């Protein structure tokens, strides 16, 4: 967010363009520069990786070229069971999204509810807190026994993503400014108005930072769940299939895709944050 004073300080003499197109020009220059640096980092990384692979001289070490070939192979022909790379990625993505969405809805409503009525949390704490510390991975065997197919994955992901969201919403309720609540009350607002116009906007940053953590945990869980359970499709499954064959290039493709999807969804979330919280001076990353 630019303040008025920023334009006033800009050096005299460079201002041949009008302020608006000047700003646009500056921004584009910064953007191109950033892009160039990032590209350079990627190239450097690949170069070091190739060098390392070259020295190691082992067919088990994945190489950039090998990975590229594996990508092409997996996209065009699919894996040895005929599932293409997209089907693997899509299957995992849908599972993560379903479990995560459920966790988001439940985390926010339950977090709000228990934050607003602390007695509820205080009495149920003895159940909730121990469950929170059981890693989702520990639930996998039970999930395999008790559930089947899709619900299994959703359950594991929900477990992983729910608690970070729930806890951050719950913890943010006491930080809501009581004066703003009084403003709403004095102008005739109801309890519902207080929730909608004060509490919810106040805790949205907390919801989003909880969601960002939850999303990371969700990806961790999906891979583990897919490795152990059921269907033959999914990125975690892809990694495991090729692990059995000791084909490391294909394994790296699976890993890479998880990394990239996770990165992109986090960027999308940051973009949303930037848009929603333009009233803030700084964005915490």
């Amino acid at each position, binding site marked *: 967010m630019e303040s008025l004073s920023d334009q006033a300080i800009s050096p005299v003499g460079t201002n041949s363009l009008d302020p608006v197109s000047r700003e646009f020009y500056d921004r584009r220059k910064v953007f191109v520069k950033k892009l160039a640096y990032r590209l350079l980092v990627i190239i450097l990384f690949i170069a070091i990786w190739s060098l390392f692979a070259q020295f190691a001289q082992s067919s088990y070490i994945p190489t950039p070229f090998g990975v590229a070939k594996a990508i092409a192979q997996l996209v065009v022909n699919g894996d040895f069971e005929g599932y293409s790379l997209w089907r693997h990625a899509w299957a995992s993505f849908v599972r993560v999204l379903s479990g995560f969405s459920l966790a988001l809805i439940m985390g926010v409503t339950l977090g709000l509810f228990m934050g607003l009525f602390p007695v509820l949390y205080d009495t149920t704490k003895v159940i909730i807190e121990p469950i929170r510390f059981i890693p989702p991975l520990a639930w996998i065997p039970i999930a395999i026994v008790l559930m089947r197919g899709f619900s299994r994955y959703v359950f594991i992901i929900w477990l992983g993503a729910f608690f970070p969201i729930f806890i951050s919403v719950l913890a943010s309720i006491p930080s809501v400014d009581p004066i703003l609540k009084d403003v709403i009350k*004095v102008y*005739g607002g109801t309890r519902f108005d207080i929730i909608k116009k004060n509490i919810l906007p106040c805790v949205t940053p907390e919801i989003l930072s909880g969601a960002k953590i939850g999303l990371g945990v969700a990806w961790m869980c999906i891979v583990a769940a897919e490795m152990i359970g059921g269907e033959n499709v999914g990125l975690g499954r892809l990694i495991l299939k090729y692990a059995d064959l000791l084909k490391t290039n294909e394994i790296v493709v699976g890993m890479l895709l998880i990394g990239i999807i996770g990165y992109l969804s986090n960027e999308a979330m940051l973009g949303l944050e930037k848009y929603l919280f333009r009233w803030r001076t700084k964005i915490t990353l």
Partner: protein
Amino acid sequence: MSFTKPKVEVDITHRFGDLLVLDQIRFDVYENELLCVVGPSGSGKTTLANIISGLLEPSEGSVKLDNKPVNPRKQNISYVFQARSCFPWRTVKDNIGIALELKGVSRVEVQKRISDVLKIVGLTGFENYYPNQISGGMKQRVAIARAFCVESDLLILDEPFGSLDAQTRYLMQSEVLRVWEKMKRTVIFITNNIEEAVFLADRLVVFSNAPAKIIKEVGVGLPRPRVLTHPDFLSIRGAVSRLSDVARDV
């Protein structure tokens, strides 16, 4: 004026637990009157404002507005808080408009009233700014604009200029007077500043140290605009100061 029925009737005593805060506070406010409550800090003035606005229930007694117990859900009350009361995620425009939104005023009407009141408080051009982009004085003007754009039966201002520098404070006082003269409201203005109280008020209620009692009610019959250095002004100001001093010695 004294023959008409009072608009607001305050008759309360308040305790926080065992701590007596307000001791038999009893005064009336008349329609379109600007009444100042002046007292030292820590004398329970904000508690008084919260009780009069209906946000807080008094331990004893009641506050009546138009002969009915005060209730913000049923009556129109405006309140400018001492603390900053801007919603950081709302623009200046939407911060002002929230009071009207809560009253269920139509969107078109809200826009019209906001642009009217923006002009009065001198915030035109800043309607789309967020609170973190404007100064403290402007934030307080937002709160004042919010309070003025509602057609309220009672307007309460609780040390609205407490944190402002002398210059801005003087400017804002004149502004409040200007708005009040233009839009005619019944106003209770709470302050710890005697000069400010004498400058603004039709009538003063002077509070003692905690637990607050009313020392005296003082009518200020000076014509407006008042001049801070005029002998009449100074003599009233002096008299009010002495009232407070006497109370401190007792």
